Structure formats: C-alpha cells, structure tokens
C-alpha cells in the first residue's frame, strides 16, 4: 500500500512476490491469465487488421511513387498525437457509433495509431529499393507486376517486417490504456491499482505490461532474423518507432 512509507523496498518486493504467488490472482475473469488473453487478443487483432489496411496500399503507392511528401507529413504529425488522447477521444466516438465502451474504442484507437507509422515505414522501405535494381529488372523484361512482386516487395521485406514489429510493440503499449475506457487487458491492474491506491497491484501490473512489450519485441525480432536472408538484414535498421 502507498501508506507504508517507511516499510522499505524489500518488504514491498516481498508483497509483490506474494501477490504473484497467490493463485487467486491468476484465475477468474479478473485474473492475470484472462487479462493476458484479452491483451494479446486485442493486440493480435489490431496488428493484423492494421497490417492488411496499411501494407498493401503502401507497397503499391511506393511502387508508383505516389504521395511521398504526404508520407513525411504523416510521420511527423503521428508522433505529435498523444496515444492517451486518442484512446480517450475514441470513447465518445464509439458510443455515438453505437459500439459502446470497452473493446471498440480501444480497438479503433489502436488502428488509428498503428496504421500511419506502418504505412510510412513500408512506403519508405519500398521507395528505398535500389533504383538500379529496378531498372535492371525492367531491362530483363520483367513486367510492372513482376517488378513489384518479385523485386521490390522481397527487397523491402526486412523493412516491412520491422514495421509490423514496431507497430505490434506500440499496440501492446497502447492497449494498456484500454483499461481507461472499459477494456480489460493488463492495464486493468495498473488503472484499478491506482484507483484504490494499492501500489503492489500497480507494480505487479507494470511488471506484466513491461514483460509483454519486451517479449513481443524480442519474439518478433527473432522471427525477423529467421525469415530475412542475412544479405538483406541491415536494411531494417531505419524504421521509425513511436513510444506509447
């Protein structure tokens, strides 16, 4: 509890450990396992839908070299928009749309925040493919479609995968804020803990959220390294990421 001022850090960590040791905190609707499931569920859904909505148009537009200046503007404005504000803003919007509280305002906010950086990163990736290579492919007699699917997309694949990873990590972070608009997820522990001034629960929730974000980053990074050929690896380094 917050009121144990002189209690000492060791005692506090003991309480946190005891909280994790109590099986009552793991099971049931408000248990860790269910909150984790909710968090992963909305993250997976939002990342998947954002990928489908952002990547194909980005690849196509970059191939046609349309909208380059727009892309830069979107990156800059995207960074300036607070994710907290967007999650909160989507609450009255969702209610007016008849979608209620909880899942929908969180999900829509996640899409709104994940699509722009994903789009711009994928766009930059395809637009950054060596023009000589594209020229050579055309010289070899490849059709426009073949250049797109057999040269530009594979060459940009490290950047595209990195864009998905960065977005997924950002979505994990922002999904935490869903607890403010009635969604479950691991943010529940932090928000509810704050509400009743129970710093053990707040700290435990923070530990869970931070772990999930780091595990997502590391796991998707590992997938990238397995999928991307070593010769293309250095290309994924310049991907814009945003803290949420």
């Amino acid at each position, binding site marked *: 509890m917050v009121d144990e001022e002189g209690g000492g850090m060791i005692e506090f960590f003991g309480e946190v450990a005891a909280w994790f040791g109590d099986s009552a905190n793991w099971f049931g609707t408000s248990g860790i396992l269910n909150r984790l499931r909710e968090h992963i569920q909305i993250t997976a859904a939002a990342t998947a839908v954002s990928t489908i909505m952002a990547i194909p148009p980005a690849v196509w537009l970059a191939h046609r070299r349309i909208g380059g200046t727009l892309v830069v503007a979107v990156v800059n404005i995207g960074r*300036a928009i*607070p*994710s907290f*504000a967007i999650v*909160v803003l989507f*609450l*009255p919007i969702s209610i007016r749309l008849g979608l209620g509280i909880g899942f929908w305002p969180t999900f829509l906010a996640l899409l709104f925040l994940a699509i722009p950086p994903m789009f711009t990163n994928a766009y930059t990736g395809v637009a950054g493919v060596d023009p000589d290579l594209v020229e050579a492919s055309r010289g070899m007699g490849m059709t426009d479609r073949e250049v797109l699917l057999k040269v530009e997309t594979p060459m940009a694949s490290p950047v595209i995968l990195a864009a998905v990873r960065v977005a997924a990590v950002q979505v*994990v972070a922002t999904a935490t804020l869903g607890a403010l608009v009635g969604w479950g997820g691991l943010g529940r522990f932090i928000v509810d803990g704050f509400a009743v001034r129970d710093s053990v629960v707040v*700290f435990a929730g923070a530990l869970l959220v931070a772990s999930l*974000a780091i595990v997502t980053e590391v796991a998707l990074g590992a997938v990238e390294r397995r999928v991307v050929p070593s010769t293309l690896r250095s290309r994924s380094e310049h991907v814009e990421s945003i803290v949420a």
Partner: protein
Amino acid sequence: MQAAGGFFSWEWVVNHLDDIWDRTVQHLLLTAIAVGVGVVISLALSIIALRFRWTYAPITWFTGILYTIPSLALFAFLVPVTGLSVLTAEIGLVSYTLLILIRNMVAGIDGVPPATVESARGMGYTGRGLFFAVELPLALPVIIAGVRIASVTTIGLVTITALIGQGGLGFFILRGLNLFYSPIGTTQIIVGTVVSVALAVAVDLALVGVERLATPWSTRRAAA
C-alpha cells in the same frame, strides 16, 4: 449553451482560457525539463560511447529496453518509489528521450568528415577543444534532429502523466474522460488533444529555427 451536436462547447473554452494557458505552460515546463536533462545525460553517455566503443552496444541496449517499456507501466513502476510527483513524471519522460538523443549524437559525431578532424588537429586542436569546438558544432544538425524527435515525443507523453497527478494539458483529457457523456467532457478531451498537438508542431518549428541560427554555415551553403 452548447454547439450543434452537443459535442463541443465554445462557451467552456472561452470561460477557461486562463486554465488552458496555465496547463499549457505546465506542459511546456515538464517537456523542457525532460528534454534538457535528457540532453545532458545523453551527451555524457555519448561521449563515453565515442571514447570507449564497446560501451555503445550496452548503452543502446539498455536505453532501448527503457524505450520499449509502455509509458503507463514505467510511471507505475516509479510511483511506489517516488510517489505521485513531478519527479516520477520527469524520470519517466527523460528515460524515453535517451535512446533517440544518444543515437543521433553518436551518428552526428561519427558523420563529421575525417578530413575536417584531421585539419583541425593540424591547426593544433586536441582532445576537449577538438570535440567542443569542431566535432560537436558540425554534428549539430543531426543532434538537433534528435532533439526535435525527443521533444515532440515528450510533449505527447506528458499527457499520460495526468494519471499520476501531473499532465499539463493531459489534465483536460483525463477530466474529459470522467465526463465523456457530456459536451463539457468531450470539449475538454478535444481541447487537450488539439492544444497538445499544436504545441508539438510549434516546438518542432521553433527547433528548426534554432538549428538555422546555430548552424549559419549550412544555410549559407544552401543559399550559395
């Protein structure tokens, strides 16, 4: 009383201009302290990373982990230690600036042409003099690019500190959240968001101006 649709109340805005101004100043102050402290720490760590190359990987690894931790979680970690205070907010905000700033500082210094460094040495510059009089000024455009990203990011993150009793303009967003069913609530959410974004754009433009003033040679070159 309220505008059409009942979503936004101009009357509320007009009646709370003082309040909005105060929160904007608080928002700027929280940002300025975070970026200022972030620059000092990053400069120190960058100098270490440049001097002892092997430290660069662990430094970026550690600041990268800080960067990955969701902000609400980072603030929540600190609350049991430093309470619902400005200090808690600042520690969290500074943490997020480090990776961005260090990366740009090291890349900026690395990007100084070796020939320039060589001729500076030929003119008698060594050690600290070489670093502060030649390398650092030449790296300024890249460093300021980092400061711009860090500032804009911080302005966004300040809003979340409303949940730990700080928040600047985030205060309106949080209060709006509690009144989301009424136009007074949605008005505050919109005001908090719009002013915060406007602040980010203004600060970004101001820093572009600073860059022009601090590196007169680059504008001259561009004009030539």
